[in-house]
């Protein structure tokens, strides 16, 4: 026990000064005590922040260079959206898809939606060929639906965390079929197949696990 004769307090520590008045402490015995609170260990710096900075820098410079070349040599098409979109998607894939700790169904649903959005933009702003609506939109949704369903079947204990993302993608699968009615989608088979699969999965959940879907909706939408 050390003693501060200025504050008149006792303190159990190895430190030579008083925490209240910073005065030197007097002590009789030299026995060391175990400090009540651990020392502060500052977080160790890794290579990662530097890598990130370097990659950020190259990303931004390459985007600027691509845009500049495209604008100088403009011939009616914004072809630079293709590489720029790929670079941005790569960022999301690494930071969100690989490095983040979100659950896998969320990652899949989010990255699929993002990919669809980017590809639609690329299609619109580059050569307007319509491949994004006709093929990619329905087929990506279809594969995402399949993937999440398989994950739920395989990792069944986490189904509570995954089911909302499956439902989201199921609802999104209605989009291509709606676009067919508006005449934006001209090639019908991918949209119809995606829709059919989505409805089948939905019916499967409704028939076999009605409670889980009801609970999930109640939970997410309680007001």
């Amino acid at each position, binding site marked *: 026990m050390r003693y501060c004769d200025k*504050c*008149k*307090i*006792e*303190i*159990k*520590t190895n*430190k030579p000064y*008083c*925490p*209240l*008045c910073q005065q030197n402490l007097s002590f009789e015995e030299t026995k060391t005590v*175990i*400090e*009540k*609170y*651990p*020392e*502060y*260990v*500052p977080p160790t710096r890794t290579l990662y922040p530097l890598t990130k900075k370097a990659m950020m820098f190259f990303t931004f410079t390459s985007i600027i260079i691509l845009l500049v070349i495209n604008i100088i040599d403009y011939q009616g098409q914004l072809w630079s959206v293709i590489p720029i979109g790929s670079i941005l998607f790569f960022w999301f894939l690494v930071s969100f898809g690989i490095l983040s*700790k979100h659950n896998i169904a969320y990652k899949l649903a989010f990255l699929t939606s993002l990919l669809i959005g980017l590809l639609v933009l690329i299609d619109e702003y580059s050569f307007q060929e319509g491949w994004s609506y006709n093929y990619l939109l329905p087929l990506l949704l279809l594969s995402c639906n399949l993937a999440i369903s398989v994950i739920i079947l395989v990792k069944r*204990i*986490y189904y*509570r*965390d995954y089911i909302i993302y499956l439902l989201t993608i199921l609802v999104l699968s209605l989009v291509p079929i709606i676009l067919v009615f508006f005449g934006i989608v001209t090639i019908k088979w991918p949209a119809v197949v995606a829709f059919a699969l989505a409805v089948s999965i939905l019916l499967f959940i409704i028939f076999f696990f009605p*409670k*889980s879907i009801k*609970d999930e909706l109640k*939970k*997410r*939408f*309680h*007001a």
Partner: protein
Amino acid sequence: MNKENRYDTWYRLDNSGKIFPEVSNHRETNVFRVAITLSEPVDKDILQLAVDGILSRYPMFKVKLKKGLFWSYFDHNSKPFFIEEMSHYICGEMNAKYNNGYLFKVMYRNSDIAVEMFHSLADGAGLIMLIKALVYEYLKLTGKEVKSDNIVPTKHQKPSMEEYEDANAKYYNSKNRKHVPEERAYRIKGTPLSDDLTGLISGIVSTNKIINLARESNLTVTEYLTALMMSVIYKTQIQYREHIPSNQKPVKIFVPVNLRKHFPSNTLRNFSNFVKASMIMIEDDITFENLKILVKEQFEKGMTKKELIRKMSENVAFEKNAFLRFTPYFLKKYALKIGYNMLGMKLNTMSLTNIGKIDFPESMQPYIVDLTAAVYSGKYNTLNLAVISYQDRFKMTFTRSIIETTIEKEFFRHFTSLGFDVEVESNYVEEY
């Protein structure tokens, strides 16, 4: 209904819990801690087993925070809970990334077990219940002959629905919910600590002595400490500097009130409200005696049943508001944030939490040496005080986010000048 081990359980956040997820960050963590010192070193494997056992009895704590369309909610957490070694941070941010989404932490160091909890999950009384159950379970697993004596909940009891209720909503009165506008409070200034570190200084005095001291002035211990705190703030921060504009704001001490003592409820969740001692300290000579009278009067006024129900209803009213209720969560988040920034944080100079005297069954007492309570301190409340007592150890713990320790020094010198023996503990944050 038995909610034990059911994977489809989820809980609404209680009324006070709803605000904290939106306004918490690495500086304002809204985390508080109760630590318990045992008579022998803690075995971490047995502690882990004890925590696992307790979590199956208290499914309310085995949750993670999820977002819904209108409100966030607690969802059953199927990931394992891991205890950790105590780090230097006191009441640091509860980051879901590092803790499998759990909203509380169990830490160990030598003979200490510390439990930190995010305020959304429970209040001090809820945490005390948890820590009692945990220590009982731990001692039992180490082979000690301990009995619960009905003071400590054990894992063999069945959880009752009453433990989960939102008691605030139960006492809501739509006719008594008037909002009383408040002025911004004086803020204790100082040099901020870097890296979100928190300084901790606790002082231990004799419980009986301090109770007698408060009784001499015809006050409760909480009232006495509040008056003392105001007098110390006045002496160290404001006196002779009354002309500075920021010193003309009222000094307000926020004192949480455990409503379980005023209204019948056994809930483990948030069921507390507050009283405030408030004074604009611009007079030349404010004595401790004046402050004692002021605090007693203000506390008596603030603790009437009618006033407590008003404060409760005022809070519940916002979640009953139909417009806010059906605003999607991602927008509501900002509304709550702005509201809290304007109304909540800046209205207090500091908080003084008295958790009170903690009793353990006689068979457990030989194994328990000491208890410590601490609350976070942040950008606005740069200094907070938490008080807990066990047997004859009355422990007052200051946590601060500034380097200066003038207030603590003055506070403890008050006791030493009255002839008290004060034992001090510090985490020596100023070294880093």
